[in-house]
């Protein structure tokens, strides 16, 4: 991990005043369908951030990415990238963006170097500059020794690393990654995370779509949670975590709690939701100070011993679940 980031200082700061990506009322309805895949999405990715898009399958993440790359035309609304309109200034946009698809989009019978060279040329690079970029990208992927092996003979981890650095060959200002570490070995995953942080430090704006909450929590400064084509929540990761944490109380109960425990607690004023998983009781409330004492009283009344109690800490997964699965229980 001693390799220097291949980015020059030209990206440092990243911000040119305009956000990296700005979606306004973006709606996409596929022909023959009445249900919008994207429904009036408003989303702003500030320049120089690592931004995560989270959402269950079918939430609309891939549609957003395809629209950003100019592969899909929005039904209505607008997409601006670094201040340029994605529909009318497509050539400019394509130079600014680096796309890393979920599955390795590479030629298996070509070597890693040949893949980089080909896609580099397709990005308009040539001569000495192209050779320098190829070496830099091989360096970033830590696969200089594998450069002249055919891709079909490389491991899945190497393929994913190569897939990522091909997206960097033309030094884009914005890197878009679709599930970059799915089904990957821990070493490659760690390397990709490390490189993404380096890229971020060099001023690159990064938009990452992921299912892996720990990944989003570790990498992203901001996230948006999508479901059914709508943005359910968007904001700074620490803010979302602290907001969620202050609303959740978790109790570890000794022995098996009764099956109807959650229902029995519904009468507590201020309690929004309660659910039991094994010996863990999770309670959601907007007024933990008012709920805490009646809750402990109820435990005592039902003869349940509390082994541990946590309040004020939570994970992004809890945030995600509370805005997707958990939503149906809110009142």
């Amino acid at each position: 991990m001693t390799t220097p980031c291949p980015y020059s200082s030209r990206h440092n700061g990243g911000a040119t005043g305009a956000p990296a990506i700005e979606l306004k009322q973006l709606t996409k309805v596929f022909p023959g369908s009445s249900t919008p895949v994207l429904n009036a999405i408003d989303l702003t990715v500030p320049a120089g951030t690592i931004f995560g898009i989270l959402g269950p399958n079918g939430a609309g993440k891939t549609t957003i990415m395809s629209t950003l790359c100019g592969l899909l035309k929005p039904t209505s609304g607008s997409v601006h990238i670094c201040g340029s309109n994605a529909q009318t200034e497509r050539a400019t946009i394509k130079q600014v963006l680096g796309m890393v698809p979920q599955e390795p989009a590479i030629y298996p019978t070509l070597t890693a170097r040949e893949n980089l060279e080909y896609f580099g040329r397709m990005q308009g690079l040539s001569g000495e500059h192209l050779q320098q970029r190829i070496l830099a990208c091989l360096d970033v992927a830590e696969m200089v020794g594998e450069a002249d092996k055919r891709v079909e003979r490389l491991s899945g981890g190497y393929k994913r690393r190569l897939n990522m650095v091909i997206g960097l060959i033309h030094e884009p200002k914005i890197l878009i990654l679709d599930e970059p570490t799915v089904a990957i070995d821990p070493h490659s995953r760690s390397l990709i995370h490390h490189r993404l942080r380096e890229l971020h430090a060099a001023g690159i704006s990064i938009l990452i779509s992921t299912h892996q909450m720990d990944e989003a929590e570790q990498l992203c400064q901001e996230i948006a949670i999508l479901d059914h084509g709508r943005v359910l929540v968007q904001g700074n990761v620490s803010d979302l975590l602290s907001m969620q944490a202050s609303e959740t109380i978790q109790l570890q109960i000794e022995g098996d709690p009764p099956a109807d425990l959650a229902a029995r607690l519904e009468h507590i004023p201020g309690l929004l939701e309660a659910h039991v998983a094994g010996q863990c009781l999770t309670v959601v409330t907007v007024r933990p100070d008012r709920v805490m004492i009646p809750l402990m009283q109820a435990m005592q009344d039902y003869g349940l011993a509390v082994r541990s109690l946590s309040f004020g800490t939570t994970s992004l997964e809890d945030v995600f679940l509370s805005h997707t699965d958990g939503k149906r229980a809110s009142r």
Partner: protein
Amino acid sequence: MMDNLTKFWASIAKEARIIGRDHQALFLFFVMPVLFVLILSLALRDAFGDRPGATFDVLMVSQDPGEVTQSIVEAFRSNAHILLTQSNTASEAEARQWLIDGRYRFVVLVPADATAQAERRLGEIMAKVPPELRMEKPVELVVMADPALRSDFRKVLEGSLNLALHGVEMKLGREQLQQTMRATQGENYVPLPDMEKSRLFEPVRGETVTRKGSGPTPTSVQQNAPAWTLLAMFFLTVPLSVSFIREREQGSLFRLQTMTVPAWVVLGGKAVPYFVINLIQMASILAVSVYVLPLLGGDRLELGNAPLALLLIGGSASLAAIGFGIAVAMYARTTEQATSFSSATVMIMAALGGILVPKAVMPPLMQEVAILSPLSWGLDGFLDVFVRGGGVQQVLPEALSLLAFSAICHGIAIMRYRSQT
């Protein structure tokens, strides 16, 4: 523009590398078509041109030493389709059995005194004996044919036989006339002119006439070399379309679509290596037909005198095939769809276009329908050069038709590609 040209060359180089590393595909591209041409040209050697083609075993049983037997033997021997066996001992029953056994397809039994009987009857006719008082009847030959023998071939054999007998009548009649003249004119007798030198009609020999004018019938190799070149070219649509769909499935096409790469660079970069493969296929098939086939006992392919015309028709056919392949790739969703659709369509176009079955043996309606197939245009173009001695001007209509087909296919493909991005 320069930037796009650089991308174009890079695309060609990438595709050439991918193809060059697929050894199985290279075998199929270059070795299989050459083998096909060799095998089919040798196997079908006798079904084309002036070669004897189908031959029939014919038995003639005769103890007649005279003119009748000699004339029939002479007529049958001059026909390359007849393999004549003579017997002067076999009985009618034996001959019949041999026919049933399939040893012979056609049997002629000549009565032992056929010539003498004919001469006696001629004498009566010349002596003006009234028909009802004549002692001799016309000579009757027994003719038996294998029921499996095609009726048109049987008619050819019967025609040859009747012609020979008619010749005997003429010859015997002439001899009789000369004898009579010698007897009546005495010192003043002047022999009749030599029949061979005094023919009223030139012997007929059919000339093959095509819609472009006259020329020789294509030999087996003249038909097969261009036919299999064209089929190989059009079968390249299968790997071409599959290669496109694989790129789509692998995501590399998606990645290219996120870059500033014009459609013509992506499609052209794929097309050019396949165009070169097509030209190499054509050159190798023609070279084998010229230099290798004669060593194996086949006919040598006569290339004509217009290499530019060959290049024009070959290049146009290749562009038509590539256009078709790319258009298929743009619409097929899976490699299975592309493979089955392109191979089935190419086979239908080949069958229609006179590639699998020469147009000359098709019924008139099918010959009209053949015009619909681009492979037929290509084949006609090649035959213009090989068989009809044509040049660039003669192949231009076919070449332009193929180029128009190619332009339409490429246009459809580019529109589809753009609509997908």
